[in-house]
């Protein structure tokens, strides 16, 4: 069933999120002097993945705190090529709140799966989350509890669920103690059942007929024809 398959390919509970360091969120300000700054409603959060170990991302999860839109940018380094790492946009302006001025979605949990991203999130070195909250209604906004889960290739031999392969065929014969062999019994029952099926479908109105010979039921006189 598709739903079950979905559960299997989704991040299983025992996949650990990647360890990373999150730099302090940088709230962009407008204005030159410190006294004159106004909140721009934009914040940048950089997530640095472990140095020397680029990650193939399966999904990113987080809890919202009054952020209206999030843009996800990835710094990818292709291991084969010697080229420097490049930034690309994986998701632009994903709405987290229906309406930036009202509560809906403001504290919800979100998951961004790799299939929702516009580029393949492989060999990622750094993830940059650009948060936007244009409304004046809120004092602050951010994302909490950011987790990044690595992509794991499904083991082809384990396509079938573990429990199925754990089943062993019991082929030792049970102790019958004088009873007939179950296999023979079941096959003869099956034959009988099939016969009754045939009888049911081929019901006729003709009488069964009597097995008498010249009006006599004496068993020794029963004809074998």
């Amino acid at each position, binding site marked *: 069933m598709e*739903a079950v398959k*979905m559960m299997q390919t989704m991040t299983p509970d025992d996949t650990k999120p990647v360890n990373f360091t999150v730099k302090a969120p940088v709230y962009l300000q407008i204005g030159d002097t410190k006294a004159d700054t106004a909140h721009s409603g934009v914040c940048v959060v950089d997530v640095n993945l472990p140095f020397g170990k680029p990650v193939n991302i399966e999904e990113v*999860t987080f809890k919202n*705190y009054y952020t209206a839109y999030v843009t996800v940018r990835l710094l990818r380094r292709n291991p084969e090529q010697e080229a420097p790492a490049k930034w690309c946009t994986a998701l632009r302006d994903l709405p987290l709140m229906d309406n930036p001025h009202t509560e*809906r979605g*403001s504290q919800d*949990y979100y*998951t961004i799966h790799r299939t929702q991203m516009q580029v393949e999130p492989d060999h990622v070195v750094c993830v940059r989350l650009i948060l936007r909250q244009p409304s004046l209604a809120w004092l602050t906004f951010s994302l909490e509890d950011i987790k990044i889960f690595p992509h794991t290739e499904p083991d082809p031999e384990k396509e079938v669920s573990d429990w199925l392969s754990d089943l062993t065929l019991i082929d030792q014969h049970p102790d019958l103690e004088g009873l007939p062999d179950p296999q023979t019994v079941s096959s003869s029952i099956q034959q009988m059942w099939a016969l009754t099926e045939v009888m049911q479908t081929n019901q006729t109105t003709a009488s069964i007929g009597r097995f008498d010979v010249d009006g006599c039921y004496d068993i020794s006189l029963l004809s074998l024809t």
Partner: protein
Amino acid sequence: MQQGNGIELSLTIAQIIQRLRGSHLHSQIERQAKECLHQPDVKLESLKEDVRSFLKTSGWERKLQNAVYRELQLPPRHPPAPPEHLKEPLAYMRKAQASWEKRVLKSLNSMSTELGVPLAHMRPAAEQKELTNKWNEMGTDEPDLSRFRPVYAPKDFLEVLIGLRNPNHDSSEDISARSHWGLIQVPLNVRDIPHLREAYSELNLTSGQMGIDDHALIHPAVLCTHSLFCLHLSCVVVMEEDSAAAQQYSRQGCPTGLRADLWALILNATNQPQDVMHYEQLKAGVIQHNLLVDNLIYKVSYIYLTPPLLFSQVLLCFSRDTAVLEHFKYNSATPPKSYIQGEIISVIPFHGFSMYVAPLCFLYNEPSKLYNVFREMYIRYFFRLHSISSHPSGILSLCLQFERLLQTHLPQLFYHLRQIGVQPLRLAFKWMVRAFSGYLSTDQLLLLWDRILGYDSLEVVAVLAAAVFAFRAENLMEVTSLASAEAVLADLSTLKVMPLIQVFLFATAM
């Protein structure tokens, strides 16, 4: 949420399967499937298809569809989210609800101490026997209730709602940016008339409504055809036992004779043997134990002129129904429970909730059926009217919606009332918190509740409150005091709800 649709769908499917697995319906269908194997037209080669078509023709597939439909009404579970978040996503609301509950429980406990009556005690055997004999006369006997007072009044609850603040809300910009004239200070998402027109399109002025358009003023020929058509349609819906169709149908009102069946269908409130048994168990609980709240229930039942015995029976049983606790998984409210000999035996009802039962007594005369329908209605809708949450059908959203509708579409009236020191919400709150029960005439109330079920939302209650103000606007503009404003709005018993709502939604100048 803008998640990948395929992923979201598969997740929902998996969750529904999990919820239905192990349910009574699941075992019934399994049993039916096994039994149908005896049938001759079920063949081994085409076993799967044959069993499926058997389940379809025997109506079991429909029952499963209804169950799935009901599950879809519940919010989807998002994997990383903890259970309390599922109930209520906003942390400050959860906190407010928890402290409100503590307050109510404290009040109940102090009443118990003050009166010297324990919250719960086991009845002596003689008393139990007497109650069993008098069960069907309950309600005609009036115990001395003068010492008991309600646990809290609606206006106490309103004060709590008014005082709610989001700690992250910037109120310094309040006056210039939003200029909200009302009392509710929480910025919840509420719909305005253009959105409401879309959502409630079946109520528009050109659609026939039960209760208006089957009135005698219309030409008999037209009346007959329309009514007959509606009646026929509703019969078909009931016979087909289709919950979703019943819900859609209810949006234009239910014919009186079929309302009971249609509501039961929409709520999927079956009256199976195990439901009757459950009810009998609850009844036994009532006879065995006397609860403090029972006295509060007796007290209220005399206000409403309904068959009192049915009313009391249902309420007393409800307060003991711990299966109701199961629903509180989807609601951040945790009802106070009382213990007898270490066992949880009751959900302590909140004041006034008996008003939710009374109208149902006019529809159902079988206690266990009435009980099941009431319980479903309570856990889907009515509990939201006395708990603090951000849900669109929650009382907080309804209050805000009422105020916004009034300020946007009747600004002169709102302004005038504020000038004389009257906040409109203080007048309308008691109507909304009881879903208008006790204020409208019963037939009108049932037409309103048809729409609550039909649209699966209590929004229509807020819309009606605003519509009543619109209707009485002229008189209200003349008043100069709170008392006279209250007098203008005191008697709603002559109002016809559907024309009011229709005019307010579809004839208001934009």
